[in-house]
């Protein structure tokens, strides 16, 4: 009689043991405090919420995701430590953040073969050497800037353009390709200017005006861009403004107010006010996990989600194929990925040669306090020509 109870207990323990899902760790290391934390904070929240949603809905059966968002304070030594911890733990994928941190980790990522999805869309991340394991969620800064130049060339042929960039590798990333593309498009890049962290951009703007600049294209973060377009508005300049992913977005509208009207912005994400499954999904998730409106409206929130989603999707593929969840199998799943997702304007596709997830971009224009798409999703043909010589 006693034995029987023991057996039952044993069976119960066994059943519970099997029912407990496999735990898979996904780590993100980025700046929640320190420089660029205005973006990093929401990016981290996007990752956390997507992860919670996946666990709550049982999106990947049999796997419980443990998503850790680590604050590296924009300090590469911390990023390195977090990354190595992930390697040692045997994580199947790693979510990165800054341009500097990603570029620094490239040789190591190659050596250990752990798939790496950064928040920095620097083309140097996926250019050789050591580029096998790094995957961009959306098109690179270079492609974004060229896409906006293509749009400019279409609406005002022969335009004179100035590039205003962040004083860092992040800002300088698209300059070379943009110059080449401008030659092809018949527009002129008059000047490339690194933006100081100043209170006043009158000097720069006046000089642009003297040189007959019609468009300023920004590769920067929203704060300085907002100040520059406000100054341009005050000076009564006729110059139009445009920018890549991190330059625009709802943050810019909040900071620059009416001065942002007419700003051309290129990104691969949906806006919260849009009708459509993607925008609704982001809003619902933010509401479900109690995020403030600022977070939900920020473009960094869905950006973080997409990064987490790509990682989770690859793990799901590997799981469905009945493979062990490890770096190599997730890498193989990433290489074959063709995921029709609702977070971005195009499918996430990767291959051995293509390490850009969402190849499509949209140009949006600030109208009446929101960004309205002015193009259908498209991918820049010229970018491939100027960058890869295809």
């Amino acid at each position, binding site marked *: 009689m006693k034995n029987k109870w023991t057996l039952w207990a044993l069976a119960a323990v066994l059943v519970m043991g099997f029912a407990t899902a496999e735990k898979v760790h996904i780590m993100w290391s980025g700046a*929640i*405090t*320190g420089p660029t934390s205005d973006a990093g*904070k929401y990016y981290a929240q996007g990752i956390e919420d997507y992860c919670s949603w996946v666990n709550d809905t049982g999106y990947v059966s049999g796997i419980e995701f443990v998503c*850790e968002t*680590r*604050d590296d*304070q*924009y*300090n*590469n*030594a911390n990023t*390195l*430590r977090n990354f*190595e*911890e992930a*390697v*040692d733990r045997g994580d199947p994928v790693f979510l990165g953040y*800054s*341009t*500097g*941190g990603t*570029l*620094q*980790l*490239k*040789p*190591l990522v190659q*050596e*250990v073969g752990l798939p790496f999805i950064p928040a920095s869309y620097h083309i*140097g991340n996926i250019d050789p*050497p*050591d580029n096998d394991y790094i995957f961009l969620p959306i098109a690179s800064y270079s492609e974004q800037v060229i896409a906006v130049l293509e749009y400019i060339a279409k609406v005002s042929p022969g335009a004179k353009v100035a590039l205003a960039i962040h*004083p*860092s*590798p992040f800002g*300088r990333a698209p300059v070379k390709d943009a110059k080449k593309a401008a030659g092809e498009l018949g527009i002129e890049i008059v000047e490339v200017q*690194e933006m100081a962290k100043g209170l006043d951009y009158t000097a720069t703007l006046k000089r642009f005006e003297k040189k007959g600049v019609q468009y300023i294209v920004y590769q920067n973060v929203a704060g300085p861009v907002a100040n520059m377009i406000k100054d341009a508005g005050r000076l009564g300049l006729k110059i139009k403004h445009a920018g890549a992913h991190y330059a625009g977005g709802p943050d810019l509208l909040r900071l620059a107010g009416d001065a942002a009207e007419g700003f051309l912005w290129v990104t691969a994400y949906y806006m919260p006010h849009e009708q459509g499954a993607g925008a609704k999904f982001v809003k619902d998730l933010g509401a479900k996990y*109690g*995020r*403030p409106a*600022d*977070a939900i409206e920020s473009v960094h929130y869905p950006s973080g989600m997409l990064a987490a989603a790509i990682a989770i999707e690859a793990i799901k593929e590997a799981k469905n194929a009945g493979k062990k969840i490890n770096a190599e199998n997730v890498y193989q799943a990433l290489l074959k990925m063709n995921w029709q997702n609702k977070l971005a304007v195009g499918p996430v596709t990767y291959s051995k040669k293509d390490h850009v997830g969402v190849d499509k971009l949209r140009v949006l224009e600030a109208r009446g306090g929101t960004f309205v798409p002015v193009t259908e999703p498209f991918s820049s043909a010229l970018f491939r020509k100027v960058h890869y010589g295809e």
Partner: protein
Amino acid sequence: MRNPWTRTGNYKTSYAQDTTIFATYSEQASLAVFLIGMLVLPRFLVRGDMQILDLILIYALAVLGLNIITGYAGLINIGHAAFMGVGAYTAALVAPHLPFWAVLPVSGLVAAAAGAVVGIPALRIKHLYLAIATLAFQLIFEWAVGHSPALEQGGAMAMPRGMVFFGYKIAFKNHHYFWYYVSFTVLVLMAFGFRNLLRTRFGRSLVAVRDNDRAADAMGMDPGKTKVFAFALGAFYAGVAGALYAYWSRAVVIEDYSLMISIKFLAMAIVGGLGTLVGSFLGPAFLELLDINMETFSYAIKEIYNPPGVDVGSAIRPLAFGLAIVLFLIFEPRGLANWWRLLRSYFRNWPFKY
């Protein structure tokens, strides 16, 4: 009769005895135990721990240099990370052509040259004004790197990979172990240099100039030259540390040598105890381990208390860093080195009370 094991009094009968650093057998034994302990330590640590240990050693080397400039010579230096950066960028440029043991001194020398140039204003200015001149150097350094295509404009310059050292191939698994031994050897050598510095003519004039440069001048020392040389020597240490950091982190990126890091070095020197050898190890160890523990702690906080829109956990880390500096300055201005001294003096006389 002199007891060779403990210090029971001053029985020195020759000049040679007076100049020994480790006077008693127990002191020599404890040094030997410490060195052997450090050499076998990696056997008991996992790779992740080694990474942190390496970082502490490399930072300790840089802080030694800062202690020459700020601790010995009293010249406040808010640009020490830039010296380290000069060393790291030199390493990135010469590493493809030279073996690593040659890269280290070359990087040190180039940084020393930069240090001497920064030290030149010290001929005329002092105290706070000099501190701000070093701050200017830090910012100009960052700007200059950002505008140099040869240095990838601050982006990553990868260090050579797949190094083979006497048939021993260095890869991910043993990377940190290898660089631990290299850093440790370099650190021990340079720490002996640091320890002996104060016994040289130059070292003593450093302290004299710190305490009163006019008086030192009157006694025939050249305060200007001494200060410039202090900067050069301190920058040499930082340069070597920069080269080690470059190898350790596998690539040189400008953010690793920013103003934030300069401030961290000053904090490490202060918390460790300004101008002390042992403080140069304890300071970096304390602050790095504090940060890592606070990080772990911050995740625990996040589990319990995580209001929307605020990241209380992440805020703990800068808070702890700042509080460590402030509390040490208020309650223990002589730093951890003083605790070490008290501990040592207790054991030195043991089993006697005094």
